[in-house]
């Protein structure tokens, strides 16, 4: 009985594994949509400067770097000592100011009034437009108010509410943008580092 069931399912699966062709015009449509988007690395040099990368250094180069840093440190210390009385601030703090703790994201509260909704989620480019993302499920706060506070990376983002897994609703309190690819209502948000 069990073997028979497995054979049936395997027969069904075999039929479903047949390749499916899509229209040849799909490639052109995708590329057309992609060309309308901002080009990656638009800022060229700046992008290279801020993109993290792995650097391989030989022991010899390490030694030379260490010697150079030590040399600068000695010179700096001598200079600081000579100008000690008139120095406005230590050279070390001038050269190496304390870095501020930089946050890569901020917690943002999203609020929507939807008295008839059974479920409200926030989707955006910050969560892959995934309406099932656990961190972006709004909770009902009473009076038809739904809200969720969730982390959003610094920068410009597009987002929307998805009500009952089916209806896309732009945030009535935020600037509206047109998602020119698909015509769905989207809102815009700019997340900045808190000062």
């Amino acid at each position, binding site marked *: 009985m069990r073997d028979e069931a497995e054979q049936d399912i395997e027969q069904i699966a075999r*039929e479903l594994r047949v390749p*499916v062709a899509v229209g040849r015009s799909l490639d052109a449509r995708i590329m057309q949509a*992609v060309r309308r988007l901002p080009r990656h690395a638009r800022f060229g040099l700046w992008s290279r400067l801020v993109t993290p990368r792995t650097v391989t250094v030989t022991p010899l180069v390490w030694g030379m770097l260490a010697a150079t840093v030590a040399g600068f440190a000695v010179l700096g210390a001598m200079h600081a000592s000579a100008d000690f009385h008139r120095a406005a601030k230590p050279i070390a703090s001038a050269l190496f100011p304390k870095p501020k703790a930089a946050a890569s994201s901020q917690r943002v509260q999203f609020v929507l009034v939807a008295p008839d909704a059974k479920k409200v989620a926030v989707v955006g480019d910050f969560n892959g437009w995934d309406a099932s993302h656990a961190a972006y499920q709004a909770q009902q706060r009473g009076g038809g108010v739904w809200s969720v506070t969730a982390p959003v990376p610094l920068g410009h983002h597009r987002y929307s509410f998805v009500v009952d897994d089916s209806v896309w609703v732009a945030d009535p309190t935020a600037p509206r943008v047109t998602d020119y690819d698909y015509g769905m209502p989207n809102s815009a948000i700019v997340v900045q580092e808190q000062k």
Partner: protein
Amino acid sequence: MEAGSSDAVVVARVLRGDVEAFRDLVERYRDRYARYAFHMLGNREDAEEALQDAFVRAYRSLGRCEDPERFGAWLFRILVNRCRTLGARRGRRARTFVVDDTALLGAAEDHPAGTTAWREEIDRALQQLRGDQREAFLLKYVEDMGYDEMSQLTGVGVSALKMRVMRACERLRELLSEVYDA
């Protein structure tokens, strides 16, 4: 673009500003993932929309692809989510199921005459499954994924996935029983 470029090489080119290099990724994964989108959404028009949507969103977020060597897996995750969203959005509409014969490559050559009707019955039964069960069945039996892999992809626990697959199998056999018997 050389034919053997890895995904990571192509992704790096796109990130350096070579938009046209993205076409390589489209050609590489378009057909491979069309089958899943087609079976999840039930017709070619919706499948193409989901694919286009997934590729465009992947391009937008390409800088956030943590492992460019596994771009395909990352893209598939986006596609699975897009199929869920599109499926849910259209779930409330009355769906007219249209069998898209022309979408089946080689079906006429590889299968004897008379199997088209059988294939239509399978497609029809598949579309009658609940979306989560259809998704689990396709990932397991058609895309040939293991439960751990499915769990990572969908964010659903392994036991829940096993239950969905079991229910999907039972329901498919039930729906197709008349065809089996005939």
